[in-house]
């Protein structure tokens, strides 16, 4: 079972993730009254990037990307094999921090400022994720995904409704969607050029892209956990959240990091804490 899960994670997850990103681009185009690229576009981009000549600014960039993708896959494996959610989060954070360091490692203005802002993005979403995990713990008494899946609990969403909302915020921040495309934007029409990704190119960039696909699956898996009794419903909820994020991207301007921190830490943390408090009181 574990082996199948791991295989699924390593091989199938990026395929689904890539298709979802393709869908994202297609849907975004349609929301803008365009035809948009083919749904396989992310794969074309990926293969092309792997075929580019290698340029980099230092060896550390290669290391950072490798750790980034390794950690992302690892955290997805941890999820798929029913491990500790808290550990998973910090493994994910390690990957993210290594990416940030990779951005820092080149003395390029946009990559460095992008990294600074990426830290802020990390700072904005990390508590929201941890609070959700704690909410899960409060309902199940364990951080283990396996425990959550095998135990006979009601769907978590019923007792943890706020976390659906915070997960949408987290997803928007993680995927750099407006209004949270602060450290790097998909459209490159940003004051930071490509922000933290400015100095990565070729295969490195392709690996980062792939890591994003894994990350998307991971985030959707997280949301699916909210309806752990039936993962099909959970997946559908996650997919709906993904669509909501795309819609949000198209009906909002990019806001500043100050706004993001304020929003994530007041609204996001606020409703998380309120939800947790409700559980404490009702327990």
């Amino acid at each position, binding site marked *: 079972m574990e082996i199948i899960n791991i295989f699924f994670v390593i091989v199938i997850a990026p395929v689904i993730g890539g298709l979802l990103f393709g869908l994202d681009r297609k849907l975004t185009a349609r929301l*803008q009254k365009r035809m948009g690229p083919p749904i396989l576009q992310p794969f074309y981009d990926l293969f092309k990037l792997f075929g580019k000549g290698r340029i980099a600014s230092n060896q550390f960039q290669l290391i950072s990307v490798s750790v980034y993708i390794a950690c992302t896959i690892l955290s997805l494996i941890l999820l798929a094999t029913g491990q500790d959610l808290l550990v998973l989060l910090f493994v994910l954070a390690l990957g993210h921090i290594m990416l940030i360091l990779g951005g820092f490692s080149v003395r390029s203005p946009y990559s460095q400022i992008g990294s600074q802002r990426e830290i802020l993005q990390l700072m904005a979403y990390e508590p929201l994720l941890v609070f959700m995990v704690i909410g899960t713990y409060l309902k199940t008494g364990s951080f283990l995904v396996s425990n959550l899946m095998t135990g006979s609990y009601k769907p978590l969403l019923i007792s943890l409704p706020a976390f659906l909302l915070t997960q949408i915020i987290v997803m928007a921040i993680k995927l750099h969607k407006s209004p949270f495309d602060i450290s790097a934007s998909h459209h490159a029409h940003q004051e930071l050029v490509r922000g933290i990704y400015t100095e990565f190119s070729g295969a490195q960039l392709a690996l980062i892209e792939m890591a994003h696909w894994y990350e998307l699956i991971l985030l959707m898996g997280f949301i699916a956990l909210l309806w752990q009794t039936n993962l099909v419903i959970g997946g559908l909820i996650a997919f709906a959240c993904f669509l909501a994020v795309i819609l949000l991207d*198209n009906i909002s301007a990019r806001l500043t990091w100050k706004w993001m921190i304020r929003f994530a830490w007041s609204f996001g943390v606020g409703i998380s804490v309120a939800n947790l408090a409700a559980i404490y009181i009702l327990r």
Partner: protein
Amino acid sequence: MINNVLSNLFSKPATRNFPAKTREIAENVRGSVEFNTENCVYCGACALKCPANAIEVDRPAKKVTFDLYKCVACACCAEACRKGCIQMAKQYAHPSYRKMDVVFQGAPLLTDENGET
């Protein structure tokens, strides 16, 4: 905005599917310069009027050299030509891999910068 994007989603895209479908070009479009040297008397009025100096006329050699890559498609030459040798074609000038001059000496020839055919 949400109304706008959603109505976009459920309506046909505004995209013109070039090159699968090319759209009709309007009348009087100044696409590219077309020479018809049959009636040409090599007066040089076109060269004189051209603001970009894209046309060179060598009267003794009866030769007109047109540098497509300097042309700004202002249609001054077409207006200046009294013999009606120069017209503005509707189709735009296509991109090319090499820079080529269009030389007219009796019959039109295509040559590159070095004068080779």
